[in-house]
Every structure is written in C-alpha cells, then in structure tokens.
C-alpha cells in the first residue's frame, strides 16, 4: 500500500468509526450492524448483556441503548495500523453523553479497540473490545478499566497537589 492509498484507507476506516457513533445516537441499529462483519465478535465488557457474536445478535444487544432517552458519542484520537491491504487494527477514544429517562445525565470516557477487515472494498469491524477510563453521573455499566501503568514503588504524591 503506498502512502496515498494508506491515507484513503485510513479515512475509510475513520468514516466507519464515526458512522457507528452517528447511527448509534440515531438508534438506526440495522444500518449500524452493517458496519460489522457477519460473524463479528463484540464485547463492551465481560457481562453477557454487553457481549454478542454476529450482526443480528449485535443489533438485538444494542437495543439496550433505548433505556437512555438520548445519547451523543463524540469520537476522537483515531489511530490505525495496517497489517495487510485487507486487515487493520484501530483504536479510538469516545466521550459518550447519556440522558436518562428522568432527565439526569451520565458521562463515560472510553476506548474502542477494533479489528477491521476489508471485504470487496468495504472496511468492516470484525472484533470490538471496549475499555473505560472513567465515568460520571449515573453511568454504572461494567465496562472494564483501560490500562494505566501503576506508579513506581518509590513514588510519592507531591505536596499540595490535590486536584
């Protein structure tokens, strides 16, 4: 893949990631499922309610998002690595805002780890794992914590920095 072609394919993968957010916020789940491969493996967390295999199961599982009145998934920090012309890995960050039925808000800062496969010229997500850096409000979904290196054994907190 030459550098120009890599730019084009990187944009195509980024478009899939942003289409996912737009279609999830619109709850167009049938269209959203088309962004994934037929046999996709998706795990937002280890809880069975957050895990699915295959497009149809993903569509059924994501119907859980209707428990929120509205959502807004803001995607950033997209990074893509190509293994071959037909295989890629991507990471992206999401700031997801949720409005509950009672009008209260919940926020979540997460990471998507995706495996992309290109079939007949179209990039689709074959595998998705999610991690969470943190959350606020009433967000209590058991998404696993993102990796964060622990401090060295001899590290101590600097005096006076409490925020």
């Amino acid at each position, binding site marked *: 893949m030459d550098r120009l072609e890599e730019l084009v394919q990187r*944009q195509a993968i980024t478009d899939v990631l942003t289409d996912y957010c737009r279609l999830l916020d619109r709850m167009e789940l049938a269209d959203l499922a088309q962004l994934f491969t037929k046999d996709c493996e998706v795990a937002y967390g280890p809880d069975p309610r957050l895990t699915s295999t295959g497009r149809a199961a993903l569509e059924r599982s994501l119907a859980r998002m*209707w428990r929120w009145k*509205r959502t*807004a998934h*803001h995607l950033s920090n997209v990074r893509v690595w190509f293994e071959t012309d037909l295989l890629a890995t991507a990471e992206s960050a999401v*700031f997801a*805002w949720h409005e509950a039925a009672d009008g209260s808000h919940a926020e979540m800062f997460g990471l998507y780890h995706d495996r992309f496969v290109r079939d007949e010229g179209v990039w689709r997500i074959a595998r998705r794992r999610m991690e969470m850096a943190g959350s606020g409000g009433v967000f209590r979904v058991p998404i696993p914590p993102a990796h964060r290196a622990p401090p060295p054994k001899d590290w101590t907190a600097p005096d006076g920095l409490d925020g």
Partner: protein
Amino acid sequence: MAHAKTLQDILDKAAITDVIHAYCFHFDRAEADEVLALFTSDTVVDYGPDVPTMNGLDELTPMVTRGLAKFFAATSHHISNVSINLTAPDAAASVSYVYAWHRYQDGRPTSELWGQYHHEFRRVSEEWKISRLVLYAAGTENFHRDKMHPVDRRAPSAGA
C-alpha cells in the same frame, strides 16, 4: 488521473475540516471578524428555533459580534466525528459533533452542549466557505436557549 482526483479529495476534506476547526478557534478567542470571514456572503445560519434564522452575512454579523463581545465570557468548542461529503467539484456537506462549554458575562451558571453541526460549504475564490450552518442538540445542561433542533433518534420498534 484517478490518483490526482483522490489527492484533490483528500486536500479538499482537510481544508474543510480546517474551516470547521477555525470557526471554533476564533469563536473561543472572541474574534468576530475572523469567524465571519469563514462564511459566504449569502450564508444561512440556524442556531435553533429560539433564534431567527440568519440569512446572509448582514444578518449574521450583529449576532456574532454582539454575542462574542457582550454575552459570552469564555467558551470552549470541541469538534469530533467529522464526516464530509463532496457533493460537487465546488460544494460539500458535512456533519460534525461538537461538545461546547460556555461561561457567561452575567454570571449565570456555566453551560454545556452535546450537539452536531450540519454544514454546507462552497468553494469561493479557491477557499472553502460555510454556505449553511444548522446546529442540532442531543442534549444541554444550563444552556442559554430552551429549544434546540433535536438530533434525530429512532423510536424502539414494537419488538425491542
């Protein structure tokens, strides 16, 4: 030839993304002239049903100038999910997400907006300019407008 078209598309999308970012950058620095320079003279701007739609720079100028000078004390606009569709050689449409934080001169509580910009662009004298801007909101907190154009959201089907 196909290569040249691909490259031109990438350059156009990068230039359009820069315009979306520039709007936020100059808005947050309260630089009204620089914000207004991003629009076509016949631009149409719709910030929501609480504000009359502005037709042309003549109507947009007082709104932006007054808002940045007299209303906002500080703002921070964060763009993501930029999706651009090149609809003609000199025209484009885009959807981008915006998270916006606002502080006000009259001391009311700070506000937040989780929204989308739906833009149309036209290339004028080699520069991409905003010919249409409509703001949609998924949600707000303490925002200075009560009514916003809602982001479309499909209702659950009977079986869901």
